C-alpha cells in the first residue's frame, strides 16, 4: 500500500516540477505510438473496408488470419524486426536498429491487424445496411468504399483508438528493437520496466500513472475534437 501512495506522490511531484526526463520519454512514447497508429490506420482501415465489400476466393482465410494476428505476441514481432534490421539482416544497411523508427516499424506490424479487424467488423455491419442502396444507385467500387469509410468514421475511430491503446502500453517489441537507450529510445513503458528491475518501485509506479493519464487524455482529446459520444451523432 505504501508503494502505491508513494508512487502517486512521486507522479504528482514529477508532473508539478515539469521533470525534463519525464517530459522527454512521454513525448517519445506519444511520438512513436501516434505515428505507428497513423500508419497502421492508413493501411488497416481501407483494408478492413475492402475485405467487407469485396468477395474473393480466399476472403474467409484472409479474415481468419487477420483475426488471429490480432493476438500477435509483441516479443516475437520485436525479435523478427530486430533480425531484419540488424547489421547482418536484409535491411541492416539502413542502420535503423535502436532508433525510434525501428520502434515505429515494430508497432505498425502489431497494430495493423488489430485495426483492420475491428474496422472490418464495423464496416461489415454498415455494408449490410447500405448494400442494396449503393448497388441500386450504380456506384463504383471505390465510391462504395469511400462512402463506407466516411459514414463509418466514428466506428473506425474506435478501431484506431483500440490500436493506440495497444501501442501505448506495449513494451515487448519496442524494448527489443529500441534497446531502451537513455535520451534516444527510452519510452514510458521501457522506463517502467527498467525502474522496476532496479527496485525503484515508486518511480516506476509514478511513470505508470503518467502513462495511464496520457492514454485517457489522448482518448478524451480525440473524442472532443471529433465530437463523438454526443447525443444524436455517431
Amino acid at each position, binding site marked *: 500500500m505504501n508503494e502505491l501512495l508513494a508512487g502517486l506522490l512521486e507522479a504528482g511531484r514529477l508532473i508539478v516540477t515539469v521533470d525534463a526526463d519525464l517530459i522527454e520519454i512521454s513525448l517519445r512514447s506519444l511520438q512513436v505510438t501516434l505515428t505507428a497508429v497513423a500508419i497502421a490506420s492508413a493501411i488497416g482501415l481501407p483494408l478492413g473496408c475492402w475485405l467487407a465489400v469485396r468477395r474473393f476466393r480466399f476472403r474467409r482465410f484472409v479474415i481468419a488470419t487477420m483475426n488471429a494476428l490480432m493476438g500477435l505476441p509483441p516479443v516475437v514481432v520485436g525479435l523478427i524486426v530486430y533480425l531484419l534490421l540488424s547489421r547482418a539482416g536484409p535491411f541492416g544497411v539502413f542502420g535503423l536498429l535502436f532508433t525510434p523508427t525501428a520502434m515505429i516499424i515494430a508497432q505498425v506490424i502489431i497494430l495493423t491487424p488489430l485495426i483492420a479487424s475491428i474496422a472490418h467488423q464495423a464496416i461489415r455491419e*454498415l455494408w449490410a*445496411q*447500405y448494400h*442494396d*442502396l449503393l*448497388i*441500386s*444507385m*450504380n*456506384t*463504383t467500387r471505390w*465510391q462504395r468504399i469511400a*462512402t463506407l469509410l466516411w*459514414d*463509418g468514421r466514428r466506428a473506425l475511430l474506435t478501431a484506431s483508438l483500440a490500436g493506440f491503446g495497444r501501442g501505448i502500453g506495449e513494451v515487448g517489441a519496442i524494448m527489443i528493437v529500441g534497446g531502451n537507450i537513455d535520451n534516444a529510445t527510452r519510452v514510458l513503458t521501457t522506463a517502467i520496466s527498467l525502474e522496476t528491475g532496479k527496485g525503484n518501485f515508486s518511480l516506476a509506479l509514478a511513470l505508470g500513472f503518467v502513462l495511464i493519464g496520457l492514454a485517457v487524455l489522448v482518448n478524451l482529446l480525440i473524442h472532443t475534437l471529433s465530437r463523438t459520444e454526443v447525443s*444524436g*451523432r*455517431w
Partner: protein
Amino acid sequence: MVTSILPLDVKNAVVRRRGKTLLGPVTTTVSDSGLSIVMGPNGAGKTTLLRLLHGMERVSRGGSLRWQIPEEEARARQAFVFQAPIMMRRTALDNVAYPLMTHGVSKKEARQRAGAWLERVGLTDSAQKQATVLSGGERQKLALARALIRKPEILFLDEPCANLDGRATREFETLLMQAFKDGTRVVMSTHDIGQARRLAEDVWFIHHGLILEQTPAAEFFASPKTSEARAFINGDIVE
C-alpha cells in the same frame, strides 16, 4: 433527343436461389409510360420481380432483360425505393445530394439541388438533421426525393407505404403522382387494395412467382380473370 431506355423486354426470366425458384419464368414488356401496380400475396415474388427488373437479381437459365440501350447505361437511369428506407448516416440534405455527388455533380450544386427537392417534399426544416432520426413518413419521403433527384426514367417502389399511416401515405402518394405526371414510368408493389385502386393504371397480379394477370386497372378490379385474383380482391386469403 436521347433514346429512351424503355420499353423493357423481359423474356423467360427466372430467379433462383439455392436451387429454389423464386420467380418466373417471366415474359413481359414494360411499356414506356404508365403507372403499374404489382399485387399479390406475401412471398408471391413481388419484391423479387421489382429487383429483377432493376437489375439487382441474377437472371438464370436463358432468360433475358433487354432495355433499349446497353444495360450499363440503362441502370444509371432508373431508381428504386425500398420497403424499409435505407437512411445513410448523414444529414437529410446530404442523403438527397448523394446520388448527384456520385455521378459527377459538384458538392455545392448537388446540395443546392437537394435543397430544392427537400422543399418539394416538405422536409426543408429537417435538412440539417441526421437522416436516421427522421420519422417513418419523413424517411420514405426523403427516400423518394433521393430516388427522383437524378430524374430517372423508371422508378420502382417496393411497398413504400407498408409502414406508413393514412396521412403519411396520402402525402407520399401525392408526391408520387406528381413524379408520374412529370413523365416518370412507375412500377410499384403494394398490399393495399385501396391504394391500388387509387393509383393504378394497370395491375400486375402475381402468385407463386408467376405473373397471372397484366390488365388495365378498371378491368382488373371489375372482372379479374383468374380465381386467385378474384379471391385476393374479395379479401379472401390466397395461398
